[in-house]
């Protein structure tokens, strides 16, 4: 593909190599994507509905395995290791995921939700260690002061924005190499959205973040690098500043100007 941009960088955290994903044989939802993602940066994936941005993101933590019809070809390297050859359970511990709608476990307390990544994997710590993980993770997402007195309450009692931060805490508790976010603020109000965006800017000091968003201004506000996808192809991948001021592809420019999407 002529327009596919191959961007090589030093020490990438995540690399897509000729990655294609198809739901139906012969029709790629993600088509030959090549890109290297920077460590400790926020990379935004933008594009109109159905462009394959979520599909690309979900390929990284092997979520597609839930649906046996989906076929993946190419390579995804996480710190140089091909995750398509690893055990999916191992991949998912290294690539944390935050979903579109907050989905805390309804039967678990706030505390249990944060530690769930360990307890579900049968990793047991002493209580003091567990307490520490819960506190650091909740502090990481700025939720500690709000919930420290109600850790035994159900996670579902929190507001939508708090629930989403709880889900981020649950993901970061496992100290993943990369944090994948699938439109994490699309179900939230502007105040909660702003809160999460500020949080991501803090979190990128510790984690590499890939965020799918259909909100261009969000990508412009928080991301360091941006990808623009259209009909399964990666059209453009560049520094966010460059892409928003001086897009190279006509389709990117049209999308950013709101002419489609």
């Amino acid at each position: 593909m002529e327009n596919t941009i191959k961007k090589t960088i030093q020490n990438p955290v995540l690399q897509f190599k000729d990655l294609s994903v198809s739901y139906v044989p012969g029709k790629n939802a993600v088509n030959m994507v090549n890109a290297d993602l920077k460590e400790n940066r926020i990379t935004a994936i933008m594009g109109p509905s159905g462009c394959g941005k979520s599909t690309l993101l979900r390929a990284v933590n092997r979520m597609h395995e839930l649906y046996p019809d989906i076929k993946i070809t190419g390579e995804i390297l996480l710190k140089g290791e091909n995750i398509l050859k690893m055990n999916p359970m191992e991949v998912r511990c290294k690539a944390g995921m935050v979903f579109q709608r907050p989905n805390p476990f309804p039967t678990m307390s706030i505390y249990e939700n944060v530690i769930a990544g360990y307890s579900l994997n049968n990793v047991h710590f002493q209580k003091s260690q567990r307490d520490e993980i819960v506190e650091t993770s909740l502090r990481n997402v700025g939720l500690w002061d709000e919930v420290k007195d109600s850790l035994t309450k159900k996670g579902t009692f929190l507001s939508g924005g708090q629930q989403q931060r709880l889900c981020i805490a649950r993901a970061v508790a496992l100290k993943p190499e990369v944090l994948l976010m699938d439109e994490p603020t699309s179900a939230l109000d502007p105040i909660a959205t702003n809160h999460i965006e500020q949080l991501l800017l803090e979190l990128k000091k510790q984690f590499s973040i890939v965020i799918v968003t259909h909100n261009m201004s969000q990508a412009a506000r928080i991301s360091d690098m941006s990808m623009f996808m259209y009909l399964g192809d990666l059209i453009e991948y560049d520094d966010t500043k460059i892409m928003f001021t001086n897009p190279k592809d006509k389709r990117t420019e049209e999308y950013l100007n709101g002419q489609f999407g």
Partner: protein
Amino acid sequence: MKGMNALNYRVLKDRLFFGMICLFSWLTVVPLFAIIWELGKKGLKQINFDFFTKVAPSTLDAMLAKGSGEVIPGGIANGIMGTLLMVTLAALVAIPVGIFSGIYLAEKPKTFYSGIIRFLTDLLQGTPSIVIGIIAYAWVVKPLGAYSALAGATALAIMMLPLIVRSTEETLRMLPISLKEAALALGAPYWAVMLKVMLPSAFGGLFTGILLAVSRVMGETAPLMLTALGSTMINWDVVSPTSAVPLLIWEFYNDPNLVDMIWSSSLFLMMLIFILNLIAKQVAKKWRIQ
């Protein structure tokens, strides 16, 4: 003016229709109240402490008591214990088997095999209980050479199974896919996703299904006649003949001196099922899927 009349006629027709709905809903409720009233009126006087702690009286004792105008001595303790024993045994088998089959149906809803399971459970649900009794007779009573609580429990377990399978499947399918994805995204193994996240989230529905299955088989008589047979004593031995409340009701019916006990036993069974249903409702409400 003519149009007005037509309108009035239409309003009247609607009112009449709604009146019919109310009338027929009353016709459903009236027999239920009548049953409870009848059972309470005739059965309540027999219910005392002995009713729960003593075994069923002999015909002679009952006749003597009736002759002197006293309430019939004794109770239905042998039946209560037998019912408890057999329902517990049946539940111990039917709950795990039913839940795991239900998980399979919810997880692989469209395979050929799950179609077979679904068809067979539907068939099993419609199978007359006497047929299941005969099967349990052939499978357990014959080989063991004796009527037993085990045989009774086998019949009851088979009857509970389809109810638990389908309620598990339906509850699990109501859970949002995002819940499963959230658990898998943490790298959790499949068994932990199902047992530690999905099943607890479905607890309300599972528990309600189990309680309804229990209350359904609690009143079963026909399969127990062919399997547990009945006993005049409290029996904890699973390979001996055992009594059950519905079996006692049948025995009381066949003994003119014990006829009064029918009403109190029926009232007891009815109340028990009423309470189970009440609990099931409360649990379903409290643990409903958000």
